[in-house]
């Protein structure tokens, strides 16, 4: 089994190749997910389009107090970036928690998002930070919140002729705290049984001014836990209220049985780890 490998040097060339080969084309950046699916025999495209030589898809830039991360930036580049660390140390830790160094050296942020595996680490953190995906096609460019990218297991709203070009992170309000926690009962490089990302900002009176919570491995897509957010926003975040808010995560998630636990166990772990994430943010101090 073979395929023709194309390495365009501009976005326009890549879009031309997608238009030319249609359903017989498959995009790759680091090709970590593609290689597994190809070796398993589940993907048999006639044409593979590699994006790594397109300079405009790389690089990390600051935009005001926000951040733009190119689609072909690897997890390792993001993990080691001073700009990412300045923007949000929890985002650095999230990238550092992905699989192993070998995988992080190869896998890219754009590829991670396009692959849409619900157990990946970065998406929940991106959702909690309010990040947007930028996607380009021959008809122009569109931006959408990361939580609106995913529709199902390994499925996104991206059209066949669209390419993710970057991820944009908004400026965070001063005093915003962030964390990413993952429950790994087996090995450190495993996919999480559940993972939780959260951002929190307290008002001067100590109530919750803003909060965003998102979970990985808790359903067919990364999930924003709006029930938890609504239960906490405007409230005084004492232990009881945080516990009550974390319990509402049950409404937001849709876990399934697999080798990392039963659906019922994951529901319980989602509540526990949501409470731990929120408690750590409340207790941290600004």
């Amino acid at each position, binding site marked *: 089994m073979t395929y023709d490998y194309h390495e365009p040097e501009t976005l326009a060339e890549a879009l031309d190749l997608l238009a030319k080969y249609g359903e017989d084309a498959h995009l790759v950046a680091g090709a970590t997910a593609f290689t597994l699916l190809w070796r*398993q*025999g589940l993907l048999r495209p006639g044409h593979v389009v590699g994006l790594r030589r397109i300079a405009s898809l790389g690089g990390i830039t600051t935009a005001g107090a926000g951040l733009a991360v190119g689609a072909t930036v690897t997890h390792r580049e993001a993990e080691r970036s001073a700009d990412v660390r300045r923007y949000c140390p929890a985002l650095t830790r999230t990238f550092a928690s992905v699989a192993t160094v070998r995988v992080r050296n190869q896998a890219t942020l754009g590829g991670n998002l396009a692959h849409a595996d619900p157990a990946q680490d970065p998406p929940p953190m991106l959702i909690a930070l309010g990040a947007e995906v930028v996607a380009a096609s021959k008809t122009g460019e569109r931006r959408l919140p990361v939580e609106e990218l995913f529709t199902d297991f*390994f499925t996104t709203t991206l059209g066949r002729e669209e390419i993710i070009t970057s991820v944009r992170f908004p400026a965070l309000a001063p005093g915003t705290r962030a964390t990413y926690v993952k429950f790994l009962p087996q090995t450190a490089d495993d996919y999480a049984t559940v993972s939780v990302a959260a951002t929190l900002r307290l008002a001067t009176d100590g109530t919750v001014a803003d909060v965003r919570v998102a979970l990985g491995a808790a359903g067919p897509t990364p999930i924003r836990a709006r029930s938890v957010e609504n239960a906490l926003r405007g409230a005084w975040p004492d232990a009881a209220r945080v516990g009550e808010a974390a319990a509402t995560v049950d409404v937001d998630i849709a876990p399934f049985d697999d080798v990392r636990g039963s659906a019922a166990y994951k529901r319980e772990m989602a509540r526990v780890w949501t409470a731990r994430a929120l408690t750590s943010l409340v207790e941290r101090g600004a």
Partner: protein
Amino acid sequence: MKLSHTALVRAPRARVWKLITDLPTAARCVPGVAAVTPSPGGGYKGSLLVQLGPVRLVLDGDVALTATDETAGKATVRADAKDSRLGGTVRATMDLALIDKGADTELRITSDVQIAGRIGEFGQPVIQRKADQLMSQFAECLARTLA
């Protein structure tokens, strides 16, 4: 893998029975099914396109009604299909039961699905969810067809 699905079809039992035991017509309600044509053995040949994320399965095979009991409202459908490009087979036995609910009919489908080869790499949660989606779209379509 055992799967079970229940749907309420807003039509009387006799009409639902007529539709689901007419396989070529009922198959039009399964999303992704291409032409269903009679085969010499008494069943039908058909093709089902299933998209699982980046993976497209084209399942070509045979489908037949292997048992019917109109009085009890029960029928059994057997399907054998393979994807020759990716490699893998799907064998399904679906027991259909129609339960009279006045003006409506409850359709219960209990399936025993055996998946072999590369298709099985996806794992049960993904396959179960896809089956759930197909079944709920099938039931909605039956209801629309009989409306």
